[in-house]
């Protein structure tokens, strides 16, 4: 089985969020960048588990970005991906990312293309679905479980009030949510091996321009918290009813 994992670089979950250039760009100054947790913990690890269970196949990661993402891409290789591809481009919008990935993947014969549920910076959750449309493949978003047998994938996804179990044929695109796998910490052997695994840089192909983010805003500072003494805790319910008017 040939698996492609979409891997994004994002600011660390605890990173300060600030903007520069008149609030048009994220200020990455002094920020640690990581592999997007959904891509790493769920998409990549499940891909590796499927390959290990089958005892055959390959796991390739693909990232769209500049050379500044190479260290993050190596982290994916250290966790166990066989090889990595970087599309050398600076996309401004999700559709461009999807077009670049689809252009690469179209003739490679991947059985599974797995994205994380969303990136923790843009939170769009769109690229997987767009890649599926551009490649004319079925797509299942936010799967929490994935098994593959006999060319058919069985997936579970959380829906309001329960879980639905779906069958889908391969090739398939999906996005991975919590529950699909457990985080793996790369060991020293993995980190050493990652240095020599292939990281292929491919040039950007043509993309469409459909707009994008014009500026960022930080939320206004939160007003002071109103403290209620523990012995009068019941007053909270009263205030929620009469003052905040939410119950």
């Amino acid at each position, binding site marked *: 089985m040939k698996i492609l994992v979409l891997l994004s670089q994002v600011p660390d979950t605890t990173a300060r969020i600030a903007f520069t250039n008149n609030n048009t760009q994220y200020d990455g100054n002094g920020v640690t960048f990581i592999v997007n947790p959904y891509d790493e913990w769920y998409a990549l690890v499940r891909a590796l588990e499927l390959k290990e269970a089958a005892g055959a196949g390959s796991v390739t990661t693909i990232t769209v970005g500049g050379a500044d993402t190479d260290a993050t891409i190596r982290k994916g290789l250290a966790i166990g991906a066989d090889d990595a591809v970087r599309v050398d481009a600076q996309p401004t919008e999700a559709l461009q990312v999807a077009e670049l990935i689809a252009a690469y993947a179209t003739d490679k014969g991947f059985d599974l293309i797995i994205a994380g549920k969303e990136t923790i910076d843009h939170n769009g959750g769109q690229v997987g679905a767009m890649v599926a449309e551009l490649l004319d493949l079925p797509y299942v978003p936010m799967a929490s479980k994935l098994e593959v047998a006999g060319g058919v994938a069985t997936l579970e996804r959380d829906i309001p009030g329960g879980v639905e179990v779906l069958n889908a044929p391969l090739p398939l695109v999906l996005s991975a949510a919590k529950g699909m796998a457990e985080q793996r910490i790369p060991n020293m052997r993995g980190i050493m091996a990652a240095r020599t695994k292939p990281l292929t840089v491919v040039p950007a192909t043509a993309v469409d321009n459909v707009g994008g983010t014009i500026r960022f805003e930080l939320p206004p500072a939160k007003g002071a918290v109103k403290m209620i003494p523990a012995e009068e805790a019941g007053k909270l319910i009263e205030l*929620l009813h009469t003052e905040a008017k939410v119950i």
Partner: protein
Amino acid sequence: MSTIVFIDTRGNKIPKAAQEAVTYASQLAGGPVTAVTFGDGKDLETLGANGAGKVIVARQVTTLDSQQLTRLVVDVATKEGATTIVCVSDATGKAVAPRVAARLKAGHVAGALGLPVDGKFLRNVFSGKAKAAVEVTSASRVISLMPNSVPIANTGGSAVVEEFQGDLGPVRIMLKEVRKAGTGIPLPEAELVVSAGRGMKGPEHWGPVEELATLLGAATACSRPVADMHWRPHHEHVGQTGVAIRPNLYIAIGISGAIQHLAGVNQSKVICVINKDPEAPFFKAADYGIVGDAFEVLPKLIEAAKKLNAER
């Protein structure tokens, strides 16, 4: 320049998110819109009250087959000459809206928080720690509305319901089974949420949390460590790597408020924090706070909620 809105109306009752999306689409268009839906939805004509002039329903599609649904939406958009396609940013919309955008080479606003200002839509980024103003420059545009962002319009009136006739291609996604996970209120739709964390000391102590939630008509949620220790089911985990919610009220009991937890709940309109540690970071993000032991505070809240329920 007509506008269509794609909604999921499966089940016995038209979901709130669908009514919000129809309301929003009609406000965006400045008049009645055409709603597109699928499956076994009932009382579809009542969407007229929210702003739908016509509802087109593809009864033959019953599962979330994003390819069939994309063909449906693109087909209706083409026939109606629609250049604006509104979807809901929920489990259904996220499978379809980006596909439609890719098909039409349209810009997609994933999770619009309201009507555009100067042609720009606001959406949450960095897990709610910032907002982005997004402009769409393509001929067509797809706008996915964040649930719980607009009040539902109810103007009376009835929509014309038409069944979709046409070929949507083969079914690729098969529904094997649906496992119900309790009868509680689903978290992403909940307006009120009562959440608890490690401060509860063990799964056997969740009784009062559930009792308070039931009294308030709220859904229950939990922090990541609680889900990871299997004290509570994973679908209750709210936070950056769990479910992101934006209810009107979020009550957090025994949750310290790590930045990853805040990322999933910071869009709540009112936040109440109950923690015995006065230094818990969550208090900085709260509207109301109580420093106290959960096991002493909860009975007082339950008593007050019972009293309130008796009065109203």
